[in-house]
């Protein structure tokens, strides 16, 4: 792709603006996605952090869930952070009754696994597929990945401390998900990886 791809950021709820700001900094055109027809106009989609139960409810209520599933099924590259990771999970633990997800990544994600806000934290994460050493990562009422299927590649685990070894970054084909929020730290490596995925270069 010679022209830069357009990357949408789901705008139902959460820190959509922060992801758009990172994309802008990388010189990649970004656009908020709020209506089903917006999805047709993008080459890749980011599902931001936020409250996953609220986001899922609104996606169903405003008829975005089915179009999102359809596009994921057809191979649209999607990157989910935190709530976005939960949205991409085939199976959710500790969700609300009947919580829906888009699905697509063969994994079981435990919602709020690290605890409530007073237990939210920063930690270093070792990430495959990126250069430059471990990432400083911000976890906010964050999920972790409890189990993955054969097709899922684990990209990142917490590197130190009591939470060492928890899976917090995964990839399956065109789908990427992290428990943490690279949009909050100024470290653009994960976003650059996703842009390369959208371009078909990673």
């Amino acid at each position, binding site marked *: 792709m010679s022209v830069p791809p357009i990357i949408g950021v789901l705008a139902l709820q959460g820190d959509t603006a922060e992801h758009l700001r990172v994309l802008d*900094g990388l010189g990649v055109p970004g656009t908020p996605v709020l209506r089903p027809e917006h999805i047709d106009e993008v080459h890749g989609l980011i599902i931001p952090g936020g409250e996953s139960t*609220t986001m899922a409810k609104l996606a169903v209520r405003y008829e975005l869930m089915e179009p999102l599933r359809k596009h994921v099924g057809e191979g649209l590259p999607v990157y989910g952070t935190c709530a976005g990771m939960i949205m991409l999970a085939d199976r959710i633990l500790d969700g609300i009754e009947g919580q829906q997800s888009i699905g697509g990544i063969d994994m079981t994600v435990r919602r709020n696994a690290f605890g409530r806000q007073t237990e939210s934290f*920063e930690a270093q994460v070792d990430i495959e597929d990126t250069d430059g050493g471990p990432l400083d990562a911000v976890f906010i009422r964050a999920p972790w990945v409890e189990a993955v299927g054969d097709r899922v590649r684990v990209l990142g685990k917490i590197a130190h401390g009591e939470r060492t070894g928890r899976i917090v970054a995964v990839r399956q084909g065109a789908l990427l998900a992290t428990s943490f929020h690279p949009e909050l730290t100024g*470290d653009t490596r994960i976003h650059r990886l996703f842009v390369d995925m959208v371009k078909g270069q990673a």
Partner: protein
Amino acid sequence: MSAQNLETATVANANTAPNSAESTVGTTRVKRGMAEQLKNGVIMDVVTPEQAKIAEDAGAVAVMALERVPADIRKDGGVARMSDPDMIDGIIEAVSIPVMAKARIGHFVEAQVLESLGVDFIDESEVLTPADEAHHIDKWAFTVPFVCGATSIGEALRRIAEGAAMIRSKGEAGTGNVVEATRHMRAIRSEIRRLGTLDETELFDAAKEVRAPYDIVKEVARLGKLPVPLFSAGGVATPADAAMMRQLGAESVFVGSGIFKSGDPAKRADAIVQAVLHYNDPSVIAKVSRGLGTAMVGINLDDLDETERYAGRGW
């Protein structure tokens, strides 16, 4: 480097990165990051677990647990304090979205209690009776993030200097009258724009004028926004109110008495959630405004004595 780009870099540099191996809780990034996650979402006042469930089902991003909504605090009079821990526990049990609770201005022990209960955010709120006439809570001392009310840029920046991770307009809570929230949003946003036009020398004077630390004044001038999310609160009662606050620059809204003092709370809650999302689309606001039943009656502010106004509380 574009302004947006700079902003991302600032957030990264302004805050302490974890120093090596240890993971850390309660950092500025973790607190402000939590506030960022609430954007585009509606935070609703609830007084019972049942109301909390209704709010959650309607699409609230968080609930504010309190004993009485501001309209009732007004009616009842007397000293308004932090809620009973049993009541807050009940609401934490009832929902899985984040739970906020209010502490009195300056009452750091109420805040300590709320933090120990595991609430996700504390509102140091003028709706409760202030506990200190000179000092707000030192919010840096806490792991839990705080939101504080403001009527002007100076007030907003003093609260941020004390560690607030989110600012909301004060409005005039419990009145169902949006006029004060409008005034505060316009004042804060217009002052932010003005700071952006000043040169380095003028910014020193501006900091003195608004009685806020120079570093934060300078940061706001450079970013063209507060370094934390700005929400609106106080008197929001209808979908159109909520959409107007967003068009005035609020990143989302708190709705206090407006929902559960209305005829059909579930429907009104859903309507306000939609209005916050589609705030630039009058056809959506029109659609969700139909058949909502009675709004809360509301109070004309001319009928409120100065001493009955909450917005003047805080320093």
